[in-house]
């Protein structure tokens, strides 16, 4: 196999993001986080540390939170990706988790917020009635450098309440 110097392997891929199927050509090495932001212009997914520590790039893969900076877009094919835009993209009609962040003042600068929203959205499905301690544990993989954890922990519990109310209506 010969390759021209200066070119790099690319692939034509099909990505299902927020219910829409996209076909695009990307370098094999391109991270899912960069494809979401640069190719699909879904800039709600934030890029922080790029080695899996900060959690800002968290998206849902088939409903489960994952780090989009630790996946190649090529390998995301065949999965359903949900970004923060897929959870709620309308300021007039926020999702339950987004509303909980508003209610509890759970966001300060907002950089880490999308990763928290995608993480918590999946978490309260798994644990619909978290204690404060469980809520703290649930967000321990996401870093907030405004030191806003107190309100974020409250937002986890509030989001669970809102979801339970929504489900009972």
């Amino acid at each position: 196999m010969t390759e021209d110097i200066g070119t790099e392997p690319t692939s034509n891929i099909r990505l299902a993001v927020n219910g829409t199927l996209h076909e695009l050509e990307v370098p094999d090495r391109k991270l899912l986080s960069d494809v979401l932001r640069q190719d699909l212009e879904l800039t709600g997914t934030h890029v922080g540390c790029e080695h899996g520590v900060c959690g800002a790039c968290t998206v849902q893969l088939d409903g489960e939170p994952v780090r989009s900076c630790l996946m190649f877009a090529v390998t995301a094919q065949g999965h359903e990706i949900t970004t923060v835009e897929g959870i709620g993209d309308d300021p007039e009609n926020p999702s339950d988790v987004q509303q909980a962040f508003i209610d509890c003042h759970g966001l300060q600068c907002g950089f880490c917020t999308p990763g928290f929203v995608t993480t918590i959205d999946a978490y309260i499905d798994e644990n619909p009635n978290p204690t404060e301690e469980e809520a703290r544990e649930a967000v321990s993989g996401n870093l907030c450098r405004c030191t806003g954890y107190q309100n974020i922990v409250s937002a986890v519990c509030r989001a669970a309440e809102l979801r339970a109310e929504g489900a009972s209506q």
Partner: protein
Amino acid sequence: MKPSPLRIHRPTTVDETLDLLAARGDTGKILAGGQSLVPVLNMRLAAPSDLIDITSVAGIDDLEVSGADGSEEICVGASVTHRRVERSADVTRANPLLGEALRFVAHPAVRNRGTTVGSIAHADPNGEMPMVLALTGGRIEARSRRGERTLDAEELNIGPLETSLESDELITRAIFPALPAGSRTGFDELARRSGDYALAGVGMILDVDGETVTGLRCGFVSVTDVPDILDLGEAVSGAELGDASTVAATVAEAVRDFIDPGGDIHASADYRRHLAGVIASRLFRRLCRSDGSSGRGDARGASGRGEDSLVGATGDDTESRRA
């Protein structure tokens, strides 16, 4: 940071994977969950020309507990995620140490994608899974176009981030034996941030007959180069559970003598050695205190992060414990 240019192959069968490995093994890497590998690529600590993504390969995604009671084994396929193992009630019943240690592997978002076999193949001394494989007497099966072989943990782990696998070999599955009824297990570690790599971690299997200790083995995270096992059976056998505090001091000292940690900006070698002793002492007392119901079959009872957090430990291993 970004990885250097590379090509990703997405085989769908084991044979296709082995062909790719045979052709590209020297310059290629297996990519499963990528939760350890991709950070290494992002930071350009490694720059393989080819990645072989095995997440779509058929036949290596099984998680099963098989065999009769007493000789049960947990077989974890190469593409099985930590999360699937962690959530399996059968796994927890057969080998609670696996689930206990898995809860310390990063965070759910990483465990959702990362694979147990991948951790074992990565052979990071900071990793929990290589230690659990060694401590519970597990083994792996590896295949190449040349054939198949089985390696126990001692044969597999030869150095930090280094295994005895050849470049054309794929670990198809890891096999963890069930623990015998009556054994009590515990795992704990201390890290600077929740879910971070441990400064020191200890896994423990305590065998008990009635009120008498009959065996004790310890494995370590972040304080030995490979997952060496310390067998304290001779030193503590015959001790009564009621004497846990006295015996715990012996255990801690043996642990400190056994390990050979390195130092870095996060913790000196002496501090890591001290921490490992403290953790071992506390684990031992905790396991002695547990009745049978909090050993095998109830992983959370014997450990769990909430019960006795070591975060903020000052190194005082005589501090009183919360009930």
